[in-house]
């Protein structure tokens, strides 16, 4: 984890020092912590029965009741919770394994099994036809994030294949809804079916199919108006669209902040049209994630993607088994490794590592390191995938270490001469002014960067002496207390 090291100083500042620089309200919950509350509760519940050799039926009832409350508090819908509890219970009673295995482990195991059963095991990719036109219909409540998700998915498909994509909006109700999709289409450079604010959904559907056939389009992403599930007229309209369009995929877009209503939404959309998958949006918010369980459980269709930010590329394939593990407090190492493999220039990293091991490390290397970090979605993205580092993560968020900061630091280094990069001690007052002017930053920023660099250099020597093979957690512990506060 050497590439992390330049900002390790911040992480290791530990809870003794929490920077007041940014007024950061509340906890900063990374999306990967979306089941954090549930996880905490479950751990507590499990620890209350830990050590008991035999669990009486009364104990079991109490535990199940607590699990039920934990799920409800995490916004999992009631019918889903009831099923969940019933299944776990019948598994326990049916198998009569109460006496043979450690009770706490057994319960964790059964809860985990059941979670995976609900969420599904593998990622379900979007179903795109090899030949001919693929039609994908989007539906959901108002404000669930349909239009944004349409654009994000288009962008995602476009990156992975050479398919020709057409975006269509049949939202004839919300002012400027079609305009919104049009702007997004232009942004990601895919075609938009412009029908000049037509007010007929049938017409839009029919003509867009014709248009797609004529223009050799491979994939239609079909956006619809937000609708309430009790609005019979609107639900009927959705049915009509489905009938005309004959989609290969019908995606339900749902807000991960949704509460108990998720059950109704999933049920009603599922009864109206044939939902084949869902996209969960705003997973980067601080919701408790219960909606994920509710929607998957009730529609029966897999969650295919999750929206993890406002930017167009913030859409990720959903891996249910990893989420299930995360709920029970295990990190997502696989995602981390995959992400690293995707983005890291291996040669560069290994040459960096060699330099570090030798203790020769200049600002040029520092800049390289920053760039690698930027590629991996910033340090908080990396840290969030590691188990047991939530404290560090919180600190990062509070210190406001962002991709922007990385960018501006790279700019600072780029504004230095070769000589300065090799030998940063040279950089004194007038050079600092020149560098800050050149990089569009302030002298303080240059100072901060230099300080950070010198500390990194020092750190590296320390790390070297600590030896290899430490886990990041061990390393964190070792570093705690050794570092001066604030870089």
């Amino acid at each position, binding site marked *: 984890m050497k590439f992390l090291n330049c900002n390790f100083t911040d992480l290791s500042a530990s809870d003794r020092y929490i920077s007041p620089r*940014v*007024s*950061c*309200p*509340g*906890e*900063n*919950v990374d999306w990967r912590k979306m089941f954090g509350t549930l996880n905490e509760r479950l751990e507590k519940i499990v620890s209350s029965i830990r050590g008991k050799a035999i669990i009486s039926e009364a104990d079991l009832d109490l535990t199940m009741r607590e699990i*039920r*409350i934990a799920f*409800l*508090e*995490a*916004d999992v*819908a*009631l019918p889903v919770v*009831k099923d969940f509890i019933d299944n776990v219970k019948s598994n326990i009673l049916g198998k009569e394994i109460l006496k043979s295995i450690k009770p706490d482990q057994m319960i964790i195991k059964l809860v985990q099994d059941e979670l995976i059963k609900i969420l599904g095991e593998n990622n379900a990719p979007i179903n795109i036809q090899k030949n001919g036109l693929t039609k994908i219909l989007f539906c959901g*409540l*108002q*404000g*669930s*994030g349909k239009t944004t998700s349409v654009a994000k998915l288009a962008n995602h498909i476009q990156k992975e294949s050479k398919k020709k994509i057409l975006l269509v909006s049949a939202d004839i*109700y*919300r*002012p*400027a*809804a079609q*305009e*919104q*999709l*049009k*702007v*997004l289409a232009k*942004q990601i450079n895919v075609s938009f079916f412009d029908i000049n604010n037509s007010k007929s959904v049938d017409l839009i559907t029919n003509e867009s199919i014709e248009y797609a056939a004529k223009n050799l389009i491979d994939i239609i992403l079909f956006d619809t108006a937000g609708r*309430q*599930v*009790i*609005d019979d007229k609107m639900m009927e309209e959705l049915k009509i669209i489905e009938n005309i369009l004959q989609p290969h995929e019908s995606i339900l877009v749902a*807000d991960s*902040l*949704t*509460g*108990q*209503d*998720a059950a*109704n*939404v999933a049920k*009603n959309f599922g009864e109206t049209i044939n939902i084949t998958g869902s996209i969960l949006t*705003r997973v*980067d*918010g*601080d*919701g*408790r994630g*219960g*909606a994920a369980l509710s929607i998957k459980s009730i529609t029966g269709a897999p969650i295919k993607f999750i929206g993890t930010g*406002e930017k167009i590329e913030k859409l990720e394939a959903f891996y249910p088994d990893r989420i299930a593990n995360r709920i029970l407090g295990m990190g997502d190492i696989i995602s981390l490794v995959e992400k690293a493999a995707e983005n890291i220039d291996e040669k560069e990293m290994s040459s960096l590592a060699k330099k570090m091991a030798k203790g020769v490390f200049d600002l040029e290397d520092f800049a390289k390191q920053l760039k690698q970090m930027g590629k991996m979605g910033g340090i908080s993205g990396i840290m969030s995938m590691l188990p047991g580092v939530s404290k560090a993560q919180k600190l990062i*968020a509070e210190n*406001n270490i*962002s991709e922007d900061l990385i960018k501006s630091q790279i700019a600072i280094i780029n504004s230095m001469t070769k000589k300065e990069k090799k030998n940063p001690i040279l950089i004194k007052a007038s050079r600092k002014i020149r560098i800050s002017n050149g990089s569009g930053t302030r002298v303080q920023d240059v100072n901060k960067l230099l300080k950070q660099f010198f500390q990194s250099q020092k750190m590296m020597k320390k790390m070297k002496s600590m030896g290899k093979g430490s886990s990041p957690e061990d390393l964190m512990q070792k570093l705690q207390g050794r570092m001066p506060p604030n870089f």
Partner: protein
Amino acid sequence: MNIFKKFQNGLKKTSSVLSSNLLSIVSAKKINQEILDEIESTLISSDLGLEVTESLIKKIKSTNISSDSDSNFVLKILSGELEKILKPREKLLLSNNNEKPTVIIFIGVNGSGKTTTIGKLIHKIPSESNILVGACDTFRAAAVEQLKEWTLRKNVDFYQGNIEQDPASLAYTASLKAVKENYDYLIIDTAGRLSNNTNLLNQLIKIKNVVGKTIDTKQIKTLLVLDGTNGSNMIKQVEIFGESLDINGLIITKIDGTAKGGALVSIANKYEIPIHFVGLGEKIDDLYEFSARSFAQSMLELDN
């Protein structure tokens, strides 16, 4: 149709689920632990949250219910309790004795319904008032166009900047214009943001600060728009937006569907922030002044 009826109709689906559940639970039987558990689950499943639910359950437990009380009895107790919690939060947003201009800044999570609510609100403000609407959502594609469309419907003045212009600079010039041209109201739409996004929260603080440079902060109201379908996160939103910005009032949207809007009660229970309006539909006049009694009663489908 009077407002109560409309309110009730809007919430009908909401309440029928809740009350029919409750009715089926309490009719005929005596209240025992099992039934209390059921009631508890039902209340939680309307997003009321654990704290409020527990206090309601306690209330039912402590009330004597004889075998011949009618099945509505429990509902009436519950609705009375809900009303008690909600009552102190009733407050009108619009009043006449305000200094000019009154600035209303709309904030909220993406997709909570800010722009639509502004559209409905300008329809509610008496037409003799001069309104200026400032489109400070310069981030979301076509957000400006959407808002503009609403202002055209009511013939209200519209102030927009350039694409990706800093929203705070736009808010500043809008407030200068509002003062100079003597507007009664300046309504500012902002881009949706999640409550845990620090940078975007700071942007809101900045918007509020720059408006405060030309207009007395007493005249600035920050309204948080909440999506009624949100669950426990709604409370979190109030908490976190409230920590960095002084929130003067709440508007809750989208409770015309199956969403039960129950989280509203836990918010009312926890925070002393007025609830001004509820959004009960997509039409221009589907924004209603919040009434604790109507809300509580129609939630449980009791007659007025």
